């Protein structure tokens, strides 16, 4: 696995996330995940045991059907791969989707 070589165009990072929201990667969590992924230039994929989905596609992420407790592998490839992985991991692990962001939603 490559790490930190700034000169390379195709940096690749990966991480593992666990879906801890009770609804799984449904509706709002899925939208948040897709929206965040779309902010990066890198190609980002999410896979479970059977399938791999484009993290920027709501269609493919819906098909992936990540439920509570699912363990997913996230792979990012590109200029901002490192930031992408960090941000997505933060959304899932630290911000716990809606829960940490609930207040923020109300303000919108």
């Amino acid at each position, binding site marked *: 696995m490559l790490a930190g070589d700034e000169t390379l165009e195709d940096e690749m990072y990966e991480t593992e996330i666990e879906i801890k929201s009770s*609804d*799984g990667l*449904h*509706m*709002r969590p*899925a*939208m948040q995940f*897709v*929206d965040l992924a779309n902010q990066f230039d890198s190609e980002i994929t999410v896979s479970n045991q059977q399938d791999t989905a*484009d993290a*920027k*596609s*709501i*269609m*493919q992420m*819906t*098909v992936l*059907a990540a*439920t509570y407790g699912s363990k997913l592998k996230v792979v990012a490839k590109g200029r901002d791969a490192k930031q992408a992985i960090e941000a997505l991991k933060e959304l899932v692990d630290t911000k716990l989707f809606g829960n940490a962001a609930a207040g923020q939603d109300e303000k919108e």
Partner: protein
Amino acid sequence: MDVKKGIAVSPGISIAKSLVIDAEDYRIPRRSIHPSKRMIEVQRVKNSFKEAARELSNVAVKQSQIKQQEIKDIFAVHMRFLKDKTLLKKITDVISHEAVTAEYAVSSTLRDIASHFLKVNDPYISERAADIYDIERRLLRQLLGSKQEDIEHLTEEVVIVARELSPTQTAGFNKSFVKGIASDAGGRTSHAAIVARSLGIPAVVALEDLTEIVSGGDTVIVDGNRGIVIVNPDDETLKRYEQYSEGFTLLEHKFTAVKEKPAITRDGTRVMLLGNIEFPEEAEVVLEKGGDGIGLYRTEFLYLNRETEPSEQEHYNAYAQTIKVFQHRPVIIRTVDLGADKYTQSKRFAREPNPFLGLRSIRFCLQNLEMFKTQLRSILRASELGEVKIMFPLITSIHELMQAKMILRDVMEDLDEESINYKRDLHIGIMIETPSAALMGATLARDVDFFSIGTNDLTQYTLAVDRGNELVSTLYSAVDPAVLRLMRNIIQEAHKARIDLSVCGEIASDPECIMLLLGMGVRVLSLAPPMIPEIKQIIRTVHINDCNDIARTILSMNSERQISNFLRDSARMIIPEAF
């Protein structure tokens, strides 16, 4: 080359490129395109995504007041689907690889995804299938909407091919470029048929699966004389049809020569020929074809193709436009005949299990007085401009007639109070289109100035046959002895009461039936404008004594088959040049 047999509903031959209109509510058939057109279809899909997203964001703004987070979320999910590049690519790939229409690529791809969602054993995912169908509809609406615009802004002659044509679609036709109509569904009196006849373009309906065979741009021959549609004809067939079409045009020119002459039989019996119209612009066609006025001005079109009810002024303007064409000649305005097969867009009509026996026509008006009064007011105001007559449709009893007349009087009183002028002596009449009205003719005649026999509905209600249902439409015949006996009764009652009588159904434009109608005592016919010259030619050829003989013989017959055979034979014998 494919040859399809359907029902001929409007005469003539047209040869042109096809414009296929798919319907949002039906499965979109797989339709190939020329590989060179792939870029265009890909662009159409991209535009439809963009437009659907724009439409959705407008809806979302309107609904931003909604507190329910769930609904907001659903809109938000739809929006993300519409912005999903992977989804867009999946669809455009279908077009690029398979060379099919944008409509088919959108529909088949999204339905694949939806059925995949349905199979997933997770209620959240399977519920998303409904979202996918919703997105499919949004996209198809954009694609079909752009097709609708195509019809409105045509630049070359086309034959319209559709599953079924709605009044909304035909109202927007660019009449100078639509040269023919062919539809999968429909019968002799379906909407597509009526519109085609009023525009004087050939049409064939009940072609079953034509839309699955034709691709947009294919050359199509519509033979409205024989009820045949030929897709991509070979050179020989094309040449044969071009010759045939020329011959038919010559015959039409011959009919046109009589348009300045009066409709008088050989013995000097004067017949009045009026036109049935839907749009004010058609009044000019009636005049051009040598008609003496308007015998049936359908007003439903003021209500269709729009979201709000027409205002009094809009009614007035439409009527004024028509009346000005005819000035001192009669214009019979029929009050709105909505319901059953004609609905407004605002869906004020609840679904009914049996719409033809339900809340339609005058019944609907009598329950929606405000709407009814608006129309009556504008008709009364327009009565100042010419010889306007008012006609109530679907009257079934004296009670209904009394109610309608009472409301008309109310409106008159309102106008009096406001010192608005109208013709106090304007004629009031009714359509005779139910067996009950035909049987109660003697009673009804006392309270009206004229009867107009609507043979289409009269036939359907007398014989209990849905005229639009291909499975039973062969049972539908306006010359069924039962229908003719009802007609004889109503004609006699009108004569006894010395009130005017006209026939405004399809039978009035059927060349074979003209002698019968004259023989039964009819002197006013109201028909599709393009048919006026031909019918006039027939009238000028016959002698009233022959007509009387034919009517007497026919009214003694008891079988429809016997009657229609006799009519065909006698028409051929007496006026061979027309057949």
